Structure formats: C-alpha cells, structure tokens
C-alpha cells in the first residue's frame, strides 16, 4: 500500500499540493508556551498542527566525567509513550526515541549553545547536569523538529535552583541565575519525494520518502548537526538543496522563539 500511497502523493505533488493541502515548504501552525511546568527548572509546550509535546529541563548536580573535569554535562531523552500514538509501546526507548533524542542532543551540544565550562561548580568534583526530557502528548509527525524547537525554548528560560553549601539543589527555590544560551540551534527535517523537497513531513510522507535529511542550523547559517534518515541515497545536488531549505526554514522557526 505504500507504493500506492507514494504514487498518489507524487500525483498530488506534481500539482504542488500535499495530501493535507499544504504547500511543499509550509510548516503547520506552531504555538510555543514556556514555563508550563512548575516542577521543572525550564519547560516548554509546543503544538505543531495536531502534534503536541512538552519538554522539561531538570538541573542536577553530579560529578563531571574524568576526562573533562571542568565541564558540566547535558543529557537528552525522548519518551515516546503510548499516550501519544497507539503504535508506541511502554518499555525502554526504541529506535525512534533514540534517534530523536540523539539528533536533538547533537543539535544543542555541537552548537555550543550551552557553555559547558560555565556549568562547572567545583572542578573534578561537582558540576551541573542538564537533563532534557522530550515528552510528546499527541504524535502527529516530525518529532525532531518540534522537540528541538521546544528544547531550545525550554533551555532559554531555565533557571538554576539554589544550592546549599554542599552543592545540593533546593528545587523549591529557584535562583535568578539562568542557563545562558549563546545561540539558538534549530533542527529542520526535509524529505525528498520524487523531485520535490518537503518541509515538516507527516508520518506518511516520512515513510514513503525517497530520502530524509535533518539539518540543524544557527542564525548565521552555520550547520551544527546532520542526520540522514531512511535507506534511500541522496545526491550532492539534493544535499545542497536540502541544506538551503533547512537553513531558510530554520530562520523562520527561530523567529517564532521571539
């Protein structure tokens, strides 16, 4: 049936129309709300069409890794649970959850948006750990882009808890100190169906795509993460076109962060 679906989509795309009526480069309507979870140090709820997810940031204090004693750490986790999609199962993260988490992780980590040295409290002994948990409530495709945007929005308004003399956090008392982000990395996933490049793919579009590429970019167009998905190859020309589209779309999304 995927072949039939693909053929159907191609017919549609020839006329510049997607199955849901969107333009090829059109993102579904997005809403972003931060500060939605009182128990998190930073949080954001994003809706994109019918997709709905909450990203929360919890700050912990731990021991730095021995090979980087003067840096804090960051950890990204995606919880793809059955509430959001009847096809998800409870249990340890599956392939999709792992890919979503790791791509968003690299997007933020490699962009150096967070100053890891700034997270160090006592070199070799104590440093902040930034935990980012991505929790979809209603899954309607494109988790990486939506999760990545929400994660950046949540991080930007994360406030560090007060610490006592033993560096233990008091979660009921937030300090005025924020997690400063030096840039805003935005992942954008592009799929290629036939000769057409589509932005913000639905699950159906992802499935029949000839190729899929997620590109995370910064304000100045620098690329800080790449993930090619799916088993179909892409050409160098495809690559350049996809990058350009991702950077341009990234700018539009970044503007929504305000």
């Amino acid at each position: 049936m995927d072949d039939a679906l693909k053929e159907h989509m191609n017919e549609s795309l020839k006329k510049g129309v997607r199955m849901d009526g969107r333009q090829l480069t059109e993102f579904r309507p997005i809403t972003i709300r931060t500060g939605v979870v009182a128990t998190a140090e930073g949080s954001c709820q994003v809706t994109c069409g019918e997709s709905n997810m909450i990203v929360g940031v919890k700050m912990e204090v731990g021991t730095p890794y021995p090979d980087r004693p003067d840096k804090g750490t960051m950890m990204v986790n995606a919880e793809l649970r059955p509430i959001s999609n009847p096809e998800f199962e409870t249990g340890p993260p599956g392939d999709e959850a792992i890919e979503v988490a790791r791509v968003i992780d690299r997007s933020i980590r490699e962009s150096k948006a967070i100053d890891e040295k700034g997270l160090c409290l006592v070199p070799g002994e104590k440093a902040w750990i930034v935990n980012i948990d991505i929790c979809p409530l209603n899954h309607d495709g494109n988790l990486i882009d939506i999760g990545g945007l929400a994660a950046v929005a949540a991080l930007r308004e994360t406030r560090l808890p007060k610490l006592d003399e033993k560096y233990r956090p008091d979660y009921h008392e937030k300090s005025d100190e924020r997690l400063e982000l030096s840039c805003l990395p935005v992942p954008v996933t592009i799929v290629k169906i036939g000769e057409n490049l589509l932005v913000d793919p639905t699950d159906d579009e992802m499935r029949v795509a000839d190729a899929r590429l997620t590109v995370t970019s910064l304000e100045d167009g620098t690329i800080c993460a790449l993930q090619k998905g799916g088993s179909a190859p892409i050409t160098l020309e495809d690559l350049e076109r996809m990058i350009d589209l991702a950077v341009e779309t990234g700018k539009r999304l970044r503007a929504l962060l305000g």
Partner: protein
Amino acid sequence: MAYTKRHDDRKPTETRPITAKAGVIPKADGSGYFKIGNTEAYAAVYGPRELHPRFMQDPKQGVLRCAYNMMPFSGQGDRVRPGTNRRSKEISMVMANALRPVVDLDAYPNAVVDVFVELPQTDAGSRCAAITAASIALADAGLKMKDMVAAVAVGEVDGLLVVDPDYKEESQEEGDVADIPVAMIPSTGEITLLQMDGKVRKEDLLAAIVQARPVFERIAEAQRQAIKRRYEEVNEEIKGPRSR
C-alpha cells in the same frame, strides 16, 4: 490543634483551582485533562480495540487497562527516572479498579480499553487527578458509563480535616498527617478508590470523607462540562454564544 488555618488560606473543604478539558489528544479515541493546583494529568483512551495476547481476552466483556506515568520533570524534587516502577504499577492497578465499576464493557467481548495517563507536573493528589482525567477520557471516547468517577484526596493535617491537601501540607512535619486519596461515584456515593499514607482514627476518616462529598459532585460537574464544552465550542463558532 496546631494547624487551624491552611497555609494558602483555603477553607478546609476547599480544593485548589481546577481545570477540566476533553478532547485534548486528537489521535486517541477519547481524551481528558485535569489540573488541580499544580498537579496536572493528561489521559488518553485507545479502544475498545483488539487485545493481544489472546490469553488475556475475556469472552464475557471487554478488559480495562490503565497505565499511570509521571514525566521525568514532574516530581517535587529530583528528576524521576523514566520507566515503570513499583509505585506507578500499583497506581495503574488501583486506577483501573477505581474506573471499572462505572464502565459497561459487555458489548466488547475479547476487546481491551487502554487508558494512558501522563503527568507533566505533580503537587500531591496525582493519582486522584489521573483518575479524574481518565474518567473524562472514557466518557469522551463514547463508552457507556453510569456516571463519572471523581477523585480527590482528603486528609488530616495536624488535627484539621481537609480536602485536597497539597505537597506542603502532606509533607508537614508537625503533628500527624494522613493523606487519603478517594475516588467516588458521585451519584451514589460509592467509593471506588481508597488508600492512605499516615494514621487516622476511624471517626476522623469517615468525617473527612463525608465533608468532601459535595466536592466529588463539583468535580463530576466540571468533568461533564469539559465534555459538553467540546461540542458547545463548535455551536458557538457557528451560531454565536448561546443565550439560554
């Protein structure tokens, strides 16, 4: 009685502000949302649908299953490690027991109704919020239910019998504290969930539940309003606000 006035000035039988919604998760067959103070729960119902593995099927009626889960950032302190644990398993089980008495699954032999509840933030009363949201979701999914199930915790905080104790009251160190989650079928007064942390005398336990009775009815009204609003919003879009 050291605790005579609640720290947030609430009356003993007053709950924190509540919000109830239906239809919040479009992919699900039915969904509900319930927020009480800073405790928030989303519930989604999938089903009735085919039940696998087959040995779990009941040829006489459908099976109801619940799964309660706290999001990692929803705890009052440290991050909650994701995944099921003993607490969430127990809550899932008592939740299902709390909801089963009202739902009629006779029309669905061998099928299952799955209820998934996720909590983005908690501030005491989480299992009650979960049950309340789940009840909205079941009704939203069109299941036959003789009534809603409304749940709220009652308790005793250092001598004062209260409704809807929050985290601060629960974790108070002076005096005895009893935290008693209760789920009730409001039209009959029957109790479908009852647990307790703490210790309490029998008279106080009964009195605490009796004084909360009107609260269960109010919550059930809010649950029903949530469902009606989902349809009334459409009416209003088309015809403007109702005058009657």
